[in-house]
């Protein structure tokens, strides 16, 4: 199973390769379009093939991610899952109010973060020590904001608001708020 760091690495590689390829194609085109040529029309078959390729790419991206990114299916069908552990968090006056000083769960458990805003729209994100993102969601007042997550590795994570809520929002950081420990049986 892959975690969010692996997904981000995969995306970095895929997009970098694409970027280099399209820049090279455009560079090649820019040079060739100024050179003498037959001035022949592009065949419609090539055009329709290209459009077909775009359709396949556009649709298959979502099918692939649905089947390979572990949290996607769980996210869209949250009602079908029973969390092993739930943490209820309240946000008010640009401050996270946690149920205890540190939230602790075990590797492999399905953890639910249920975050309620009593005033503004905020964000809720978990970050690793190197500042990379594990997960995030919006925290909208007047609505339920819940996310299920299965942690694959032990670690300590920082909570940070991922949505702008005015200049005061930059201080909405709770360092090392979530601790994931190895399974007790291990």
């Amino acid at each position, binding site marked *: 199973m892959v975690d969010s760091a692996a997904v981000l690495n995969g995306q*970095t590689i895929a997009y970098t390769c694409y970027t280099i390829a399209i820049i090279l194609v455009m560079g090649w085109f820019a040079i060739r*379009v100024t050179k003498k*040529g037959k001035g022949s029309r*592009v065949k419609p078959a090539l055009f329709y093939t290209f459009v077909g390729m*775009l359709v396949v790419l556009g649709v298959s991206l*979502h099918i692939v991610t*649905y089947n390979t990114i572990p949290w996607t299916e769980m996210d869209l069908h949250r009602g079908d899952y029973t969390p092993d552990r739930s943490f209820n968090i309240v946000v008010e006056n640009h401050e996270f109010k946690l149920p205890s000083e540190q939230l602790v769960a075990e590797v492999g458990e399905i953890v639910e973060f249920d975050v309620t805003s009593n005033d503004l729209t905020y964000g809720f994100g978990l970050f690793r020590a*190197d500042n990379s993102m594990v997960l995030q969601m919006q925290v909208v007042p007047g609505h339920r*904001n819940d996310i299920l997550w299965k942690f694959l590795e032990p670690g300590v994570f920082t909570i940070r608001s991922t949505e702008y809520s005015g*200049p005061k929002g930059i201080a909405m950081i709770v360092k090392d708020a979530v601790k994931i420990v190895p399974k007790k049986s291990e």
Partner: protein
Amino acid sequence: MSFFKTFMNGEQGLFKANSLTPMQKMVLRFVVVGLVFYAFAVIEGMIMRLYEIGPFDAVSNDQFFAILTAHPLVGIFGSTYATVFGAFLFLVPFLMKKPLWSIKMANWTWILIAVGTLTFWLAGFISHYSPLYTLYWPLPADFEQFSVWGGTIFIAGIAIVMVGSGLFVFNIFKTIMYTPEGWEKQPAGRLLGSALGTSGIANLFRKKDKKREHLVPLPVAAIARGSVDVGLNVLIILFTGVLILVFMVAAIIGADLKDTAVDALLYKNWFWWGLDLIADGLVLIFVAGTWYLLATMITGKKLFMQNIARAALLVELVVSWTVWSHHLLADQSQPAILKVLSGEMVTAFELITQGLAFFIVLATLWAARPLKMTNPLKFLLGGLLGFALAVPAGIMQADVGLNRILHNTQWIVGPHVHVAILIGLTMTLYAAIYVLFPIVTNGAKLYSQKLANIHFWLHLLGGIGMGAFMGMAGLKGMLRRTLYLEGEFETLMILAAVSGAMLLIAFLVFFYNIVMSLGLNGVIGIFQPAKLKTKDLVPQES
């Protein structure tokens, strides 16, 4: 010619503001306003780039967020709207071969855009009103963080811009449909149908010998369809502005309206539906239309697959009304069906429609080989590259799985937003400016081709570089719309700032080149009343 003489009178003194028609003056006024506000946006952008490396004393955090709020609005409304509206108010009569319905209304359009933009910019600068362009409820009505008076003037400024935008839409459709004095009666309904695409749909159900010809050229159809989105966007933003003003006026008179009266998620859906008409509607449609026009003007040939291109513009319009949910993939209360259908699947259509436009333009250029690498061609290729980079980046983030770790990161605003706007949109606009330059200036000469080349490369490399380094920071977890006070992403932010500086220098080079081409007297003359009393686009004798 001495430097001073060129600076005052333009390159070889060729530009004579007195020789301009009212239409030429009108379009040049729009362009000047657009460039001045582009300067605002690029300087603001540079300040923010430096502040992202590490805050400094000259700017407070509150001021930073006020700049962050004003920056995209100045860039889109003050700069892009002004340049695009000016160009289209000239091009629609040019392509339809009939006078603009109202030059006076067109002049009011740029005045309202300029006054409105300056109003909200000043309100933000002085009062630090900073709920961002997203205005997530109830932040715009949070008077503990923001000045109610600052907010009121800010919203009023936006409303003025919207009124100007509404006048543009009205003028465009009237020009397409009206019958000029002394002309044979024009088929207004059929012209409108052709512009919007309904006649094209009807053709699908007609027998071959009864199919009707398209009455408006393809670029006009693009402008009309993009203008539909401009009009809808005006209505949404004006309505939202009035809603916010109700809370502001209540606060001013001492009444405290309950902000819970507005549902935050419903508001977010409503506002993004309207706001996305800019990003996914009018920008993509206007850009595709401009690409098609540029390709045919550069090559002098018919557009490749032009019937498909025309149909795709209609698909893009419908798509633009149904994609908003990709902005709410991280909202857990948003129904999953909307996330998948609107957020993922319909959004993927943008890859298809924009990819199709990309291919059609390249195929049109290819068929006309060999082409000279002129300024319009090189900037057009830059614009095509910009969208080829930015659209796939956007499709990736419009995925339920990937959005969980990309939403609100620098990835969104770097490789997607800034590459789309700075490389895709802005370079397309530069191509249009270079094409229109000799037409609207009665043959003024560009001061320096060398400077035009420097502008091109600095802008292209600076824009791609900035997007790339912001994107790398985003993939490493750096959020947008916040500040990192412990130098967490310092190296990448320094590299992004260097790229940003290239963009700033590129603009200064371009601006200098244009001023030296027209001369200071010429630029001033653009804003003086036209001596020629005609509705013609260019002087008769030329």
